[in-house]
């Protein structure tokens, strides 16, 4: 009897364990599509794919409350590489809404007491999406052989980069004041160091914002990146010391191109520069390149629908230990922007982003399209604004734009309520270009300055400006007095963007508002944004521009759109410090203060100095209204299919936080 019981008990135990196993596979820790491959023996088991247990990234905050299901496909519009790229981005450190960073690909870091040496620790056992190990070598190789290939040791300038770019944010001043790029060294497979010449308290933020991927699979790259093994490395180290192993082979341009083409016919590049730019920098567009991302592209870039499939070696799990992401596939369909709404309504797209102009259509079709409209926060200074190029090549116009009374006059001539009604369904509020109330950079009265409509006062202000006429010509416009343009009507050309239909409408309205002031407005419509940006780059050929969602997430961390550091900022024009032949502002002018504040921000090595410089930039905007704000709402919208779960309402969306990537799409899941 006892024996029988024992047998029964044993059998029961066996049955239960088998059942438990079955249950385990059902609600498993990995996607069914991967479990199948494991069962078929084509993929190693989950524990061999994840980093060692202590180093696995556990995503606790964003784990859904409901039990998520694996699988499914999300379909959205193809908004270009800067739309689908950030959705799946995995930076070394991730920038957070409050401007701090958290570890991501890196496990942790130490900073030396003198603030010069950052020691970065990586996750043990972490793998690229093709299963090869991810180590510190991949970081050191990327920095020393892809990003910074050669440096002029006299001036400290980067003279060659396989990836085609290097950012001045890694430059710090040495004891002689020469700005030099940081040194990056291998310590062991899980550790590398970044050494600066003087402290840079925001280095990790700079990495998170400007150089998100400070790594690439060395083994995959070493025979497609141009390299001269016979020449000494700029850092003064031998390549053996830098990346270990057997050192790097010499690769000529021809070899690089041929080797790349041998890997895949998708890598058919015209020259080595293009190869470096595309595979070294914009790599996420190319199928076959191993990454650390949750989804990787599997289709050629020419396809109308780009397909991204889950990475079996993804190194993040949720609070329950389930491997992320939940969703199998992302599809990005190319189509004209005018079709987004109808395809959303017809249910052919799961996700579309839009602004206040289209709100009524999307909101009133929620039920037909079976989706929900979510609101996102955009940390801009103004949603709708326009600006004049302070560095315009024509001296008479430049003088006019530099005149504060002129900017005051045009600002109070705009009927902001009407713009709001016609273009944005009355959903925004009239505002000047300034940090919004409640933000750290807010200056009291900033958003309200010069927004009351007053055409008479505007005309009085213009009447007081020297060099332009008070009376009008036969067409009703003011003319220049004296100078080259004597007697000619004041005609201002506004650059608009091809893919923003509201731009053209806005300029049409500006033309209407400025006509009573005697100013003629012309639209310079660009066939695409590139033509427009090309003008920005040239710095002195465009007169004025309209903008949307301009401003800064945090001036100290990313001043690019409000300060004089770059060479494509609309109001800065040729005063931008990165211009090859940057203009020097007149001593004592308001622009000089802007340029000096920017210089101070770039070269500061203490946090207080950086904050002070950033505050000077904000104050300069307050005093000078460099950019004329029209409307602000700090909102943009997403229409998300109801079958998509764990989407976050009210997240902060901006470039620095990687737009939609800030919702961590790898935690979304689909339930029909």
């Amino acid at each position, binding site marked *: 009897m006892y024996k029988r019981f024992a047998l029964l008990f044993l059998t029961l135990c066996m049955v239960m364990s088998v059942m438990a196993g079955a249950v385990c596979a059902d609600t498993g820790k990995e996607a069914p599509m991967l479990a199948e491959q494991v069962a078929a023996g084509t993929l190693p088991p989950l524990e061999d794919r994840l980093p060692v247990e202590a180093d696995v990234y556990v995503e606790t905050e964003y784990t859904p409350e409901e039990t998520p299901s694996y699988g499914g496909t999300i379909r959205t519009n193809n908004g270009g590489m800067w739309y689908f790229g950030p959705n799946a981005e995995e930076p070394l450190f991730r920038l957070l809404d409050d401007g701090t960073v958290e570890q991501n690909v890196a496990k942790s870091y130490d900073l030396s007491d003198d603030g010069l040496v950052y020691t970065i620790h990586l996750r043990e056992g972490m793998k690229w999406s093709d299963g090869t190990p991810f180590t510190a070598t991949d970081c050191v190789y990327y920095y020393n052989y892809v990003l910074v290939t050669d440096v002029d040791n006299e001036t400290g300038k980067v003279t060659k980069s396989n990836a085609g770019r290097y950012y001045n944010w890694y430059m710090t001043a040495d004891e002689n004041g020469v700005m030099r790029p940081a040194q990056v060294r291998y310590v062991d497979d899980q550790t590398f160091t970044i050494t600066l010449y003087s402290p840079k308290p925001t280095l990790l933020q700079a990495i998170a914002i400007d150089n998100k991927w400070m790594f690439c699979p060395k083994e995959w790259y070493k025979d497609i990146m141009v390299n001269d093994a016979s020449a000494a490395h700029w850092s003064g180290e031998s390549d053996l010391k830098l990346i270990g192993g057997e050192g790097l082979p010499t690769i000529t341009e021809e070899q690089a191109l041929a080797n790349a083409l041998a890997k895949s016919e998708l890598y058919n590049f015209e020259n080595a520069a293009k190869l470096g730019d595309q595979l070294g*920098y914009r790599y996420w567009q190319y199928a076959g390149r191993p990454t650390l991302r949750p989804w990787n592209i599997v289709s*050629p*870039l*020419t*396809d*109308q629908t780009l397909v991204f499939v889950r990475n079996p070696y993804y190194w993040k799990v949720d609070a329950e230990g389930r491997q992320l992401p939940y969703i199998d596939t992302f599809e990005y369909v190319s189509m*004209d922007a005018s079709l987004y709404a109808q395809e959303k309504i017809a249910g*052919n797209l799961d996700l579309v982003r839009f602004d206040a102009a289209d709100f009524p259509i999307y909101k009133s079709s929620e039920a037909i399209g079976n989706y929900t409209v979510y609101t996102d926060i955009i940390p801009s200074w103004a949603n709708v604004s326009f600006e004049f190029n302070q560095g315009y090549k024509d001296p008479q116009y430049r003088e006019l734009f530099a005149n504060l009374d002129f900017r005051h006059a045009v600002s109070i001539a705009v009927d902001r309520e009407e713009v709001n009604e016609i273009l944005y369904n009355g959903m925004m509020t009239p505002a000047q270009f300034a940090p919004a109330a409640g933000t750290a950079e807010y200056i009291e009265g900033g958003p309200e300055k010069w927004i009351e409509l007053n055409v008479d006062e505007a005309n009085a202000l213009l009447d007081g400006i020297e060099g332009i006429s008070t009376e009008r010509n036969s067409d009703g416009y003011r003319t220049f007095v004296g100078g080259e343009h004597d007697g000619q009507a004041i005609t201002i050309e506004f650059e608009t963007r091809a893919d923003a239909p509201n731009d053209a409408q806005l300029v049409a309205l500006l033309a209407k508002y400025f006509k009573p002031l005697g100013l003629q407005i012309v639209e310079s419509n660009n*066939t695409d944004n590139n033509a427009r*940006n090309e003008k920005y780059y040239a710095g002195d050929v465009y007169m004025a521009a309209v903008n949307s969602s301009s401003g800064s997430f945090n001036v100290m961390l990313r001043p690019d759109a409000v300060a004089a550091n770059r060479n494509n900022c609309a109001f800065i024009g040729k005063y931008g410090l990165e211009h090859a032949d940057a203009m020097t502002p007149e001593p004592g002018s308001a622009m000089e203060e802007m340029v000096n504040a920017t210089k101070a921000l770039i070269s500061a090595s203490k946090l207080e100095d950086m904050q002070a410089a950033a505050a000077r930039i904000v104050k300069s905007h307050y005093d000078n209204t460099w950019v004329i704000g029209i409307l602000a709402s700090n909102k943009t919208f997403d229409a998300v299919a109801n079958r998509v779960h764990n989407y976050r309402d009210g997240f902060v969306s901006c470039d620095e936080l990687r737009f939609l990537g800030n919702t961590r799409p790898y935690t979304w899941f689909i339930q029909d």
Partner: protein
Amino acid sequence: MTKFIIKKLLIMTLTVFLISLAVFFIITLPPGDFMTNYVGRMLAAGERVNQEEIDALRRTYALDQPFFVQFWSWFSRIILKGDFGYSFSLSMPVTAVIKAYIGPTMALSITTMIFTYLIAIPVGIYSAVHQYSFGDYLFTTVCFLGQAVPNFLMAILLMFIAFRMTGDTMLGLFSPKYQNAPWSWEKVLDLLKHCIIPVLVIGLNNTCGLIRTMRSQMLDELNKNYVMTGKAKGMKAAAIRYKYCVRAAVNPIASSIGWSLVNIFTGTTITAIVLNLPSMGTVMYNALINQDMYLAGSWLFLMAIATVIGTFISDVLLAWLDPRARKEYLKG
């Protein structure tokens, strides 16, 4: 016949050369050069570029050379290497882009062409034989209306009707569900459903034209003396019609394949843009908007070449069917 074909081929070569010259001229029309756009694109992506880099790239692409030098480097690369240049907006060789899209484009064009001929010839015959009947009036009316609505409007209207009837707008070639599914019977059905609107829109215009030609040709034949002779000799009317008249009337239709091809290419371009079909039309439109002129120009070039070949086939067909045309041509 050989002499005829050789003479035609020689002229064709000259035409192709002239076409390439015209295409290259169009490529260079937009203000600025490709480099400026390229640089703008890098800046749009948030990157920094310096002037030396731009100058170096400009030299690489021979953009500072005179027109004929540029043309020759472009043309010789096509002829010798089959290299159509580089698409700046897609960062890949134009050849790769064309390879990716030529399949669906040709499939769509050929389907439409078959549809066109299948409908046009019988309807044309019917209308001619039953001249002034209700059917004749119906077809001619539909044809007139069909030709009066621009392709893009027709596409939009049909899209709206499809949405009202099925809840889907039937854009593209597949529903999301089948986009990346392996081939199956359901997927083929899905594809066919999505083909209805494009084939209708692209084909309608051309079909209407063909019906009208077929009808008038057939009417001409029916009024000819041999029909009377046949009748007098006691042949059945149907036998005369289908054995002799149709054969004679189809000749000019058969030889209009070249022109049908042009019409269909025209049709696919616009329709593909509105219906978001994975066809070269959409690619060309985007290329034009982005001033990616090598890409746009290459497609224009290929369409023109296809037409030249189509016309050549038409000419040979016509000469083969009608010896008089051959003789006339060789003489003058």
